[in-house]
């Protein structure tokens, strides 16, 4: 048994390059339940991050009583991380679950029944459609639903109502991943595979704290690092994360300067001729524009702007330029920071320059945040056209009209889909009066929360919220619909590396809760949406009908599902798309032949100017004639729009901790996880704490131009001049409103987004900090991860990164303020290591079985 709160990544199973990752089966059962008492194990995959680990749900007496990893699954080879082990099932079993629809009567939410609640929605919806038309309606969905549900929602929105105002919280987590792939390669679609971890010589993690965000993927890396011929690691992250601690080169750059660093790395590749001229000539275009844009960015110029050592920039570039097989991963450090799409495209550019794409160990993983974000993008619940179709291509619009048997004119295609931030702006301005939120919590996860709360509370807004629990957002709703969730319904979803999993129903939903699919089908029926021949727009009986319809929608598209059935997914591993006649077992890597989906008739987008987001447009794109070549896309660097100044001298960044997901809706209800990270905190560096006379556990107020939070201080190994706060903590377990104390990280963040991906800039703002009370003990931040207490001594980070002397943040230390050593002023406050004790014990069985592999023929070819 292993304490999987203390030992996040569990036991090591080392392996060598080109071997397959050994199997280790992780299992946990509810206290008091013996394995022999489990009546059924039901196949599923985990929905607590984008990794999509294959999981079996233990069922006893109609309840979920535990989980184990699926040994035959190509994603996790049997393993599970702390969230999968503890939150996946306990997060569903909680007494707080919504069991009946709620409607607002005289200002308060009261229990009701489905008929009444749905009729209330439908009558408002119909009245608005009659009076104001489809632009009065918006949908804001999630990265948590199943494929079948997104596809239903996409059709209802695009072909039933005809509104372009559809998006998901995937806008906050994964929009840049999609945008960067569309710009570089012509379409969404992950080039790389997790198998590339087994094959690579070097790994670059760009703004990706994999150790905390995708713990099982990090186990795979740790096992390579524990084996022979381990890969060299380069980490780009302002915090001293677990990844940074394993890195040969750590570039702790100033938040907001990613693109400058990337320009410097790309320039080094050119300058040292670490490029593949033949590949560039045959498979890419625009290389000269790229060369000209990066030209000013010498390592010294990068050092000046990013606050990293020029020598480290050279070393990192050399690792990229001289390793045979490089795997890159990218996540929120890039996606949620300024110039997100340009910085993420730069990673694609580095791989294209070296021709390192589509080959073993040479992948790119533009990561996702949430488990089903990929399906939201594929189906077009985020406003895109279903099946990676191009809204600017009339032929693509007609294909959808034919599939759905509707008039093409109803499908919104006159402008780009309305992104989430703009949806909220239209509500603020009063022109959108109907918003349907499913499985997400904008009242905690959106930027600048004081503004978001005002918008959700707008008089003119009719708000429908569909969720498992009465979230902060649900409390603003006019109608709340109780949703059936994971393990309570059947459907499929797809992880970061295109692997499609089936998740079967294991138990009945509580009370009257219904699947999101049933709810959307019911809405469509009650609204009377029809096809051209007068038959119902959606006549599906259940999820498998939806999946069958979806397969037709993907035929011939990059995300081809036509070779997948529920039956094929049952019993074995997930299967990576495209899966069709040519690839009956799925596809490990895209672009093996160097042919990219940029053909004007086929591509998902004609692209954008990365500086402004202006569309390239069909004429210009066709004149460029990319003809299957990838496109080097870039933009000049400009500084973040909000940088530190005298009033707000610190840079502020936000992120996850390993023990929680999103707004803790499930993880906060798993006792092991909640105990490990029970309360919000703020991180500061040793030097800054020392300069300001602050100590571990002091209660501080952090303030931006938009709002403030109050939390206990963790003196940690973050870079000087930067403060960090985890974004999970809201108010549902504090009475629902920020009445007493603001603690949500997004109280402070700025309303701004990337011009291309429209992803909000959640990782860069300017703030100030002040102490409001002495702490009564240390902060409750976990000690096992990036938030661990400082190991650096004051000023010892100077040699590595240099202080941000250009930013007038530092007050000269007064006499007697220098701490004796590195843990801030009151080092006597002993910090207990984070551990889970007896409640957090899980078994790990290292099984002597052949590790799984899918599409083996291709992989070994």
């Amino acid at each position: 048994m292993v304490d999987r709160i203390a030992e996040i990544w569990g036991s090591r199973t080392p392996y060598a390059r080109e071997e397959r990752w050994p199997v280790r089966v992780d299992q946990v059962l509810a206290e008091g339940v013996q394995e022999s008492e489990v009546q059924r194990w039901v196949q599923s995959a985990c929905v607590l991050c984008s990794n999509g680990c294959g999981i079996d749900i233990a069922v006893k007496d109609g309840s979920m009583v535990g989980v184990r990893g699926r040994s035959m699954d190509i994603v996790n080879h049997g393993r599970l991380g702390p969230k999968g082990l503890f939150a996946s099932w306990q997060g569903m079993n909680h007494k707080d679950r919504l069991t009946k629809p709620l409607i607002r009567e005289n200002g308060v939410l009261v229990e009701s029944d489905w008929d009444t609640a749905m009729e209330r929605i439908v009558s408002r919806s119909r009245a608005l459609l009659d009076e104001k038309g489809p632009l009065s309606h918006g949908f804001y969905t999630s990265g948590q639903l199943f494929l079948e549900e997104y596809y239903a929602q996409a059709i209802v929105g695009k072909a039933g109502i005809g509104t372009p105002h559809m998006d998901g919280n995937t806008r906050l987590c994964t929009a840049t991943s999609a945008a960067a792939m569309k710009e570089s390669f012509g379409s969404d679609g992950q080039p790389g595979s997790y198998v590339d971890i087994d094959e690579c010589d070097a790994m670059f993690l760009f703004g990706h704290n994999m150790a905390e965000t995708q713990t099982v993927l990090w186990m795979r890396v740790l096992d390579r690092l524990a084996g022979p011929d381990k890969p060299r690691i380069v980490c780009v992250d302002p915090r001293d994360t677990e990844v940074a601690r394993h890195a040969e080169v750590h570039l702790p750059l100033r938040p907001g300067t990613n693109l400058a660093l990337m320009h410097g790395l790309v320039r080094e590749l050119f300058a040292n001729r670490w490029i593949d001229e033949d590949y560039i000539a045959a498979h890419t275009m625009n290389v000269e524009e790229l060369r000209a844009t990066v030209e000013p960015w010498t390592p010294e110029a990068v050092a000046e702007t990013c606050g990293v050592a020029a020598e480290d920039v050279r070393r990192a570039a050399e690792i990229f330029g001289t390793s045979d097989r490089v795997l890159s991963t990218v996540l929120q450090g890039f996606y949620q920071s300024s110039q997100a799409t340009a910085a993420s495209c730069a990673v694609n550019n580095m791989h294209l320059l070296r021709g390192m794409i589509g080959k073993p160990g040479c992948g790119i993983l533009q990561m996702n945040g949430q488990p089903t974000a990929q399906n939201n993008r594929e189906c077009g619940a985020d406003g895109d056209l279903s099946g990676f179709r191009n809204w600017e291509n009339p032929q693509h619009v007609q294909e959808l009209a034919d599939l759905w048997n509707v008039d093409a004119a109803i499908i919104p295609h006159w402008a780009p889909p309305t992104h989430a931030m703009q949806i909220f702006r239209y509500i603020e301005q009063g022109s959108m009066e109907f918003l349907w939120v499913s499985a997400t919590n904008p009242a905690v996860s959106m930027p600048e929360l004081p503004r978001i709360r005002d918008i959700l509370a707008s008089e003119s807004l009719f708000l429908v919220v569909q969720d498992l629990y009465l979230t902060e957002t649900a409390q603003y709703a006019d109608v709340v619909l109780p949703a059936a969730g994971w393990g309570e319904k059947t459907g499929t979803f797809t992880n970061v590396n295109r692997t499609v999993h089936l998740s079967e129903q294991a138990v009945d939903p509580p009370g009257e809760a219904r699947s999101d699919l049933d709810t959307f089908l019911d809405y469509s029926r009650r609204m009377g949406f029809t096809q051209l021949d007068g038959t119902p727009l959606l006549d599906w009986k259940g999820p498998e009908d939806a999946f069958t319809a979806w397969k037709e929608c993907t035929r011939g598209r990059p995300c081809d599902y036509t070779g997948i059935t529920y039956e094929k997914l049952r019993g074995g591993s997930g299967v990576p798309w495209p899966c069709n006649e040519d690839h009956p077992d799925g596809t490990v890597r895209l672009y093996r032949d160097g042919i990219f989906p940029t053909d004007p008739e086929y591509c998902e987008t004609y692209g954008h100017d990365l500086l402004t987001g202006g569309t390239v447009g069909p004429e210009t794109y066709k004149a460029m004639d990319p003809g299957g070549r990838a496109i080097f896309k870039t933009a000049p660097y400009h500084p973040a729009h909000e940088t530190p100044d005298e009033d707000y001298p610190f840079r502020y960044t936000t992120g996850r901790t390993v023990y929680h997901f999103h707004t803790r809706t499930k993880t906060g209800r798993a006792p092991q996880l909640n105990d490990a990270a029970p309360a919000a905190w703020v991180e500061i560096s040793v030097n800054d704490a020392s300069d300001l006379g602050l100590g571990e556990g002091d209660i501080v107020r952090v303030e931006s131009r938009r709002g403030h939070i109050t939390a206990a201080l963790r003196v940690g190994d973050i870079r000087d001049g930067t403060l960090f706060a985890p974004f999970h903590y809201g108010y549902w377990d504090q009475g629902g409103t920020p009445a007493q104390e603001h603690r949500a990280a997004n109280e402070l963040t700025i309303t701004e987004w990337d011009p291309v991906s429209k992803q909000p800039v959640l990782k860069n703002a300017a703030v100030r900090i002040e102490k409001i009370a002495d702490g009564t003990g240390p902060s409750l931040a976990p000690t096992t991860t990036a938030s661990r207490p400082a190991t650096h001594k004051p000023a010892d980070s100077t040699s590595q990164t240099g202080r941000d002397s250009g930013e007038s943040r530092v007050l000269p230390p007064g006499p007697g303020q220098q701490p004796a050593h590195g843990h801030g002023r009151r080092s006597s406050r002993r910090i207990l290591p984070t551990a889970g004790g007896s409640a957090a014990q899980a078994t790990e069985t290292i099984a002597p079985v052949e590790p799984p592999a899918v599409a083996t023929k291709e992989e070994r070819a």
Partner: protein
Amino acid sequence: MKLPTYLGLLEKSESTLAESFRQVARGHGHEPDVHFICQTLAAQCDDHQQALKPVLDRYGEAEVDDEPARLHADGLSETRSGPLGLLRDLQDLYLLASLVDITWTMVKQAGQGLRDKELLDVVAACDGQTTKQLKWLSTRMKQAATQALLIAK
């Protein structure tokens, strides 16, 4: 030779456009994309004026009251409010940027006739950005137009 007049017109139009981008940035702070991108584009217009300096010096001042000088358009004196106001302000910017764009084209024609490499390099560096400014303006207006014209309050 009328080229100096056109160079003067170009410089003046870039300066008007820069000031108008700034005006719109200030007036539409609640539309963060417009607010920030207009600032970036204003800075581009400043750069264009800088880039024109050496060429202007070489060709000298235009004669006063030369006819094409009256072509110049006034910038935005104030911004409007609300969704329709935003649309109309962006449309004004579009007109100003179009004047800049077509004036670059005229100047390029003259530069080709003169085989003036320095001038042609300046055109190549700047006019592409003006084209992208127009693309952004049109993209943003298309995004806003349906809502603003049909249902905005």
